[in-house]
């Protein structure tokens, strides 16, 4: 008999049999969409192409060890409720405005304190690394969370290819700068291009994932196609999207939200129910998908990944290093 062990980040014990297979509800959706589209076409309206239309299926293996047993959020919610200010500030903007974004061809510049510098195609970055699926909880700094089946490769495996030197104490990342394809970049709500960074030991932690897909398919534009970062023990804004630059550096690099509001968003941005955002509490979170009358639930230290990452911050004052 197979007994499921609790996994990192687990909160609810849901049997796999309780999970609605994606194909089932996608079929439902397709029927509804077809019906709607027929209706709209009848009115002579143009049915705008959703930007998640050109995703492709991926070959991957599920990593059970790093997958929550929580039920994942609906694909529709994951792809229509996004903070991706490059496409606009409303949650619905990225899905609406990312249709013109071209995630292919793609290349990433690797530079700084490493031996293998250069410009690499996305295919080269991922070459030989098997894609794995991991179901992580994403906790936004705005006090909501989702459960998302990501597909990607461990960040450490990618970084090691470029042979960081002993001077590489941090890794700095940048999102692509394409105002013509990313209308939100016309407004200075944040400093563009979006910059993020990790301490090298954080970046090498097995939980850190370079993501290329979700729900078995390549990333839709609004979720950070074609390559994004996910560090599930940190607030969502650390996981920058559409990465074009990886740089190994000696000093702590500047990061987008920290530049924008240093007293509200720190470099570390670890999920911590005991350290509030200056304007709202981080003690409880709203689980997306719960509906109108679902209560908030307590937020877990390091978003439930305490066992995996707490040692990274031993002896640090997490109230100061928020």
């Amino acid at each position, binding site marked *: 008999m197979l007994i499921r062990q609790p996994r990192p980040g687990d909160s609810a014990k849901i049997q796999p049999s309780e999970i609605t297979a994606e194909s089932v509800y996608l079929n439902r959706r397709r029927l509804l969409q077809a019906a709607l589209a027929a209706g709209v076409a009848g009115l002579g309206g143009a049915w705008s192409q959703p930007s998640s239309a050109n995703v492709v299926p991926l070959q991957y293996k599920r990593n059970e060890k790093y997958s929550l047993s929580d039920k994942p959020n609906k694909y529709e919610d994951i792809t229509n409720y996004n903070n991706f200010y490059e496409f606009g500030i409303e949650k619905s903007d990225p899905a609406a405005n990312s249709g013109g974004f071209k995630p292919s061809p793609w290349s990433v510049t690797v530079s700084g304190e490493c031996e293998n510098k250069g410009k690499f195609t996305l295919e080269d970055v991922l070459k030989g690394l098997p894609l794995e699926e991991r179901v992580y909880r994403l906790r936004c700094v705005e006090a909501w969370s989702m459960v998302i089946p990501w597909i990607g490769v461990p960040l450490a495996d990618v970084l090691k290819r470029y042979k960081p030197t002993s001077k590489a104490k941090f890794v700095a990342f940048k999102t692509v700068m394409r105002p013509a394809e990313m209308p939100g970049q016309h407004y200075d*709500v944040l400093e563009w291009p979006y910059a993020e960074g990790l301490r090298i030991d954080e970046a090498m932690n097995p939980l850190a994932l370079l993501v290329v897909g979700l729900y078995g398919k390549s990333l839709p534009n609004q979720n950070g196609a074609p390559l994004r970062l996910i560090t599930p023990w940190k607030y969502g804004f650390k996981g920058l999207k559409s990465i074009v630059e990886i740089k190994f550096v000696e000093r702590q690099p500047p990061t987008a939200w920290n530049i*924008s509001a240093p007293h509200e968003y720190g470099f570390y941005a670890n999920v911590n129910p005991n350290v509030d955002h200056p304007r709202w509490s981080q003690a409880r979170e709203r689980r*997306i998908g719960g*509906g*109108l009358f679902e*209560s908030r639930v307590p937020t877990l230290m390091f978003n439930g990944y305490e066992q995996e990452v707490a040692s990274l911050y031993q002896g640090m004052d997490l109230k100061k290093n928020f």
Partner: protein
Amino acid sequence: MPSTFVVRRVMKPALFLLCLLPLASLVWRAFGIAGTDLGANPVEKIQDTLGQWGLRMLLITLAITPLRDWFSAAWLIQLRRMLGVYAFCYVLLHFLTWLILDQDLYWAGILPDIARRPFITIGFLALLLLIPLAVTSTNGMMRRLGRRWKTLHRLIYLIVLLGIWHYYWQVKADVREPLFYLAIALVLLGWRVWKVRRRFLPSHRSSDRPELREEA
């Protein structure tokens, strides 16, 4: 100028329905036959929508007197009370949504939030200040308070500014919309300051005219 009959029997009911639309649309999208259709985070959607309409209604209410003067449309004043009461209702519903749907009456979180988080404190204060205005919006109260009614209802100037401040402080990075509201409020309030100043200049004293009050 429309007749009293038209204002009372046509314009007021029409305005009533118009102001009800945002709320009706929310209720429809929350409990309609298609199930909840308010995006991934319906609670946030309801809360934000109600708050925004509260602020918009406050600004529209504040715009009535200037519009009356600019367009010499005295009848507009008859619509002001309904707009003001609607503003109060939307703000109250916004607050109740936060209290019940968002915080699930979790007092251990709510009370410290009101006390310690400035943007919540400010919003709560604006709601408290709206209560006496709503309570004294009846004809009986207007009669009873006499001239003090007008003084009391000048609180709306402060309330609007608190509301915009609450909104400004709540947004994460993009402050364009709250600043847009602020610009409107400053025009509407600035015009009042300008009018009062003019009244104190001797040469304009003759142009001063009695305020038109909403009729019974």
